[in-house]
């Protein structure tokens, strides 16, 4: 069986229905059972995440736990308002994470600036710069709401619908154009994202 499969090109392998679907389902099941969250807090949400992880709400029973570095993490939580100065660092962090990677937006500031809608340095439309999978509404959402967001993310993963990393890769030019519009000549260096381009070219 294995020897036969080696001769089939990759495109045809993707079209195999029966076995491949089972493999996908199993892989997704394993992925959703262990979500490692990057320990990176911006804004007020950084105060809501530790109770989620500790004894009272204990997110570890759902397979959610902290990771120290972007290379080990699956989930990036944008927790609360984000200034444009921090956005630069967040984008670099996100590009360092390994696929499959998911982004959760916590609180109303992530969606439209929230109560800082007229502030001179708070990002208003974050999905112009990063692909989001789940939004959790509230100001601030309680840990229950955050866990509910995680459960919704797990449901998405098991159905194979969480495609944030793919969207970022496919629309990389659009995301980079939006980022350049904000950062101007202080744009991120090109080596942070040049592997998104198939030819390995520069931005």
């Amino acid at each position, binding site marked *: 069986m294995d020897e036969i499969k080696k001769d089939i090109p990759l495109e045809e392998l993707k079209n195999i229905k029966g076995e491949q679907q089972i493999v996908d389902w199993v892989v997704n099941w394993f992925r959703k059972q262990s979500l490692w969250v990057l320990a990176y807090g911006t804004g007020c949400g950084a105060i809501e995440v530790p109770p989620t992880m500790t004894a009272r709400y204990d997110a570890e029973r759902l397979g959610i736990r902290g990771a120290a570095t972007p290379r080990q993490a699956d989930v990036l939580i944008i927790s609360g308002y984000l200034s444009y*100065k921090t956005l630069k660092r967040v984008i670099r962090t996100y590009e360092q994470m390994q696929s499959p990677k998911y982004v959760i937006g916590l609180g109303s500031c992530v969606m*439209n600036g929230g109560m800082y809608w*007229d502030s*001179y340095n708070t990002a*208003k439309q974050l999905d*112009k710069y990063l692909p989001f999978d789940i939004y959790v509404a509230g100001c601030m959402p309680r840990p229950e709401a955050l866990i509910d967001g995680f459960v919704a993310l797990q449901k998405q993963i098991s159905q194979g619908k969480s495609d944030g990393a793919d969207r970022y890769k496919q629309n990389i030019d659009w995301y980079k154009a939006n980022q350049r519009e904000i950062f101007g000549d202080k744009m991120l260096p090109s080596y942070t994202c040049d592997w998104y381009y198939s030819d390995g070219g520069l931005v």
Partner: protein
Amino acid sequence: MSLIIDNLRSFFPNMDFTRDSTGLIKCEVTVNELMTIVLRLHNELSFESLQTISCTDWIEENTLHLNYILYSYTHNETVFVAVKIPRELADDGSKRTVVFIPSLEKIWPQANHFERELWEMFGISVTGHSNLKEFFLEDWQNLPPMRRDFDTLDFVNQKFDFRPGREDNKDVTAERKRVRGVKAALKAKEESNGERENG
């Protein structure tokens, strides 16, 4: 009056020290006197700590009101040394005030950061400072953002896009009731159809 006030009066006979209802001692000095008075408070009356330098922008009176908040561990007393400077900006395009305040970095090292923030956020010129460069902001070209004549809303509308909201601006509760009514009607219809099929 208390001991510390008498002490202060004997040291600075020409100055007016008042104690307000919360027990804070306040006085007002000019920019040229500031360095001398603060140095004497630190050295001779043992006000060891500079807590912070606060700034208020009184655009109606055309002044920037600076408060140097000094605390003494020996006497357990707080002194507010107030300085009022005009808020006019210099003409050279640097967006900083005409009047310079002296840096207190030599007395208290933490004044370095406080003055850097004032320089960046309120546009106050500081003289004698060792490290005057951008602190919180990155690549900022406009007016200093904490001044009250800086229009944040105007700036935001020029520079950033907002997420488009709902166009209809309907009352959400009424809309939700309508949607629920439609759903309930559909469900009732389905149930009645099912009963007919079963019957």
